[in-house]
């Protein structure tokens, strides 16, 4: 391999340097019909699952074909997307907030042709490359984090849990038979890069063992005061230990105070939490972002722990499917999962979804806990 220079000269780093130019302006990438009707859209319809029609005040129409992706995508795969966009949609393509692809085409016939084409594309291993769907009252693509693919703090994998889940709920991606949209999200640790805390169903990686202390290295790798200050519950304090006659400056952890958030590890690599038996998944439900009908809401933990079962996490996907199917059968039209649970009552939610209620589900974290306890005699048997 010969080093190829871009033109950058390390001996003169400032020469010709360009910085702080920001992103390209989005206006350069709008398909003509989108540019022409910017801010002048009249209404939209979902023609069939995965196909949207937008009509402008001018009468102009554009059809959108939406397809799911794994989000983790390679150069080769993205070039295939480019080939499709060049062939069908004038060389334009858009990514949605939930990692779907969208192609704009001019006619319904072309949209259906593109949909069929996308659904025909398969990986060598057999899965779809670009399954069309993700619209309306269904499950759309899962927003997720990096997991074991690329992150240093995960308690589980992200791409694998998402693949396993989407395989199980695939019908609901390609159809629109649920009472309302269901947004499933995945975050591989409590840092929640994926911000799953307001999702209809949230898959969340959690640790359950306090940090292991690498005493002999800790003081070299970490700022002890920062590690101490990082703990939200005050479980970490400065300490000294003696190993083989040598005294090391280190920290001590009051283990019963640890809530396994991993914040100490973020500040101090000598305090890892990851552990095969300790780590796994919590499931949360009932969150939403939208202001529609009811207020935005946080997700609630309904399953405190499911062990990691790679590669397909069968226990986790079974519980998700059960919750989704129970909701689908029982909720009213337009009722989001959390609104359904609120209406029937959470005691009934656990009963109907066949989920055990344990003490781990009673909040005991600071003030917000109080607002989750029942202060009424209005409950159900």
């Amino acid at each position, binding site marked *: 391999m010969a080093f190829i220079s871009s*033109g*950058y000269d390390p001996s003169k*780093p400032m020469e010709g340097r*360009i*910085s*702080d*130019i*920001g*992103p*390209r302006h*989005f206006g*350069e990438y*709008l398909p003509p019909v*989108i540019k022409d009707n910017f801010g002048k*859209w*009249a209404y*939209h319809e*979902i*023609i069939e699952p995965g196909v949207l029609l937008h009509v402008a005040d001018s009468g102009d129409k554009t059809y*959108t074909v939406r397809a*799911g992706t*794994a989000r983790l*995508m*390679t*150069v*080769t795969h993205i*070039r295939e997307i*480019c080939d499709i*966009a060049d062939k069908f949609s004038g060389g*334009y393509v858009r990514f949605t*907030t939930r990692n779907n692809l969208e192609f704009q085409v001019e006619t319904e016939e072309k949209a259906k042709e593109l949909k069929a084409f996308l659904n025909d594309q398969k*990986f060598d*291993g*057999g899965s779809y490359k670009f399954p069309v769907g993700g619209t309306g*009252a269904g499950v759309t693509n899962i*927003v*997720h984090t990096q997991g*074991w693919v*690329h992150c*240093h703090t995960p308690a589980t994998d992200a*791409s694998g849990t998402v693949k*396993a889940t989407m*395989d199980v709920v*695939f019908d609901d991606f390609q159809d*629109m038979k649920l009472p309302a949209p269901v947004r499933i999200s995945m975050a591989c640790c*409590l*840092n929640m890069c994926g*911000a*799953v805390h307001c999702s209809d169903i949230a898959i969340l990686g959690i640790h359950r063992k306090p940090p292991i202390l690498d005493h002999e290295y800790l003081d070299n790798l970490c700022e002890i005061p920062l590690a101490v200050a990082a703990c939200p519950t005050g479980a970490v304090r400065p300490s000294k230990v003696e190993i083989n006659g040598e005294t090391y400056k280190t920290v001590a952890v009051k283990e019963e105070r640890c809530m396994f958030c991993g914040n100490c590890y973020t500040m101090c690599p000598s305090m890892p939490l990851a552990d095969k*038996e300790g*780590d796994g998944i919590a499931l949360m439900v009932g*969150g939403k*972002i939208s202001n529609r*009908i009811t207020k*935005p809401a*946080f997700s609630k933990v309904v399953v405190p722990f499911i062990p*990691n079962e*790679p590669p397909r996490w069968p226990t986790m996907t079974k519980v998700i499917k059960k919750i989704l199917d129970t909701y689908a059968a029982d909720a009213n039209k*337009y009722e989001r999962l959390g609104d359904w649970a609120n209406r029937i009552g959470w005691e009934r939610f656990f009963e109907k979804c066949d989920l055990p209620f344990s003490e781990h589900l009673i909040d005991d974290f*600071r003030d917000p806990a109080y607002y989750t306890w029942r202060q009424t005699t209005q409950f159900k048997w």
Partner: protein
Amino acid sequence: MAKHKTPLLDQLESGPWPSFVSDVKQEADARAKNEKGIDYQIPVDCPDDLLGVLEMSYTDGETHWKHGGIVGVFGYGGGVIGRYCDQPEMFPGVAHFHTVRVAQPNGKWYNTQLLRSLMDIWELRGSGLTNMHGATGDIVFLGTTTPQLEEIFWELTHDLDIDLGGSGSNLRTPATCLGMSRCEYACYDSQELCYNLTMEYQDELHRPAFPYKFKFKFDACPNGCVAAIARSDLSFIGTWKDEIRIDQEAVAAYVGGEIAPNAGAHAGRDWGKFDIQKEVVDLCPSKCISYDGKLTIDNKECVRCMHCINTMPKALRIGQETGCSILCGAKAPILDGPQMGSLLVPFIEVNKDDDYQAIKDIVENVWDWWMEEGKNRERIGETMKRLGMAALVNAAGVPVDARQVQEPRHNPYIFWKAEDVDGGWERDINDFRTRHQR
């Protein structure tokens, strides 16, 4: 021929959903064949080694990535996240495997020319693996080595006129819904505001000077497609003040069954005939809609939840006096539990003509306060909780408003200030004693 055996990952190739394993294998093959004769600048077999290390995690139940070191490009404190494998001898292709965040065009619209140019850089100088896109919104290039960072930055800025995104304790790459580009609900041009603020605050984006991360997100209506209300320190959510526009003929067409409700979103199941009373009137959260052959909305009582508009998009349109609400302090649970954005500014005009100065004034006031008061690694939502909503409202320089609370306080522990009280707090004990014996 795969470099490592991956029996567990191979099981993720079956099933309908797109398999990232198949895709990474496809890339590994393409790099091995190298039909275009590319002089790869990082190890050719890094996709193979990525699968190898991931398979090891599937067996071990633990990650094999180490903490990032300090890597980046000259003059920036963010945009690159250092990443090293903790089994470099077994997987040399990914021993050094840093992430590069690249600023995405707002609304994530692309043409293939731009995408292909980005892919050319990443094929030559990186692993060929990406996230389209990261949770914050950036294009994420997964995996390269330190000597390539300046080269990638040079090519991005010189050849593609594109910058890096944010990471660390700075302004993170702002993100927006697709707004006016393809949505009839857009109450303001979320993409243009996002672009303008991104350009205005490039310094804050690239050079960490904040107590912790800070996120702007822009939702052009209360439906909230980018989840601004749940995950951004300042959320700009479109809204309106005047009346919902009604087309009574189209309402009749919905009632008559000629138009499918909710834009056809429920087509997968037979929910029966559309019932406007049950599906719109009764579900209105502020009960401001009635129907007696004609739809009437008491707009003064409307809370703009979007339900009636979403359900009958051909008949109802948002008002015309539009702008945005600004909410502050949303975040995921770490450290103090999750927080939703709290309403700071009920309504503000989104005015491009004065370069959005009114919005920038609020942003800068809020930042000044947080940089003064915030502790290290404290999100502004936590600073707000610690010091109070009123302190934020005052610092932001916006009027106090009943809309900023759900309900007034439950306790009378009011922190009165001396200037709130007639005569102030200075008193003379001797004067007091003229009326009260010791």
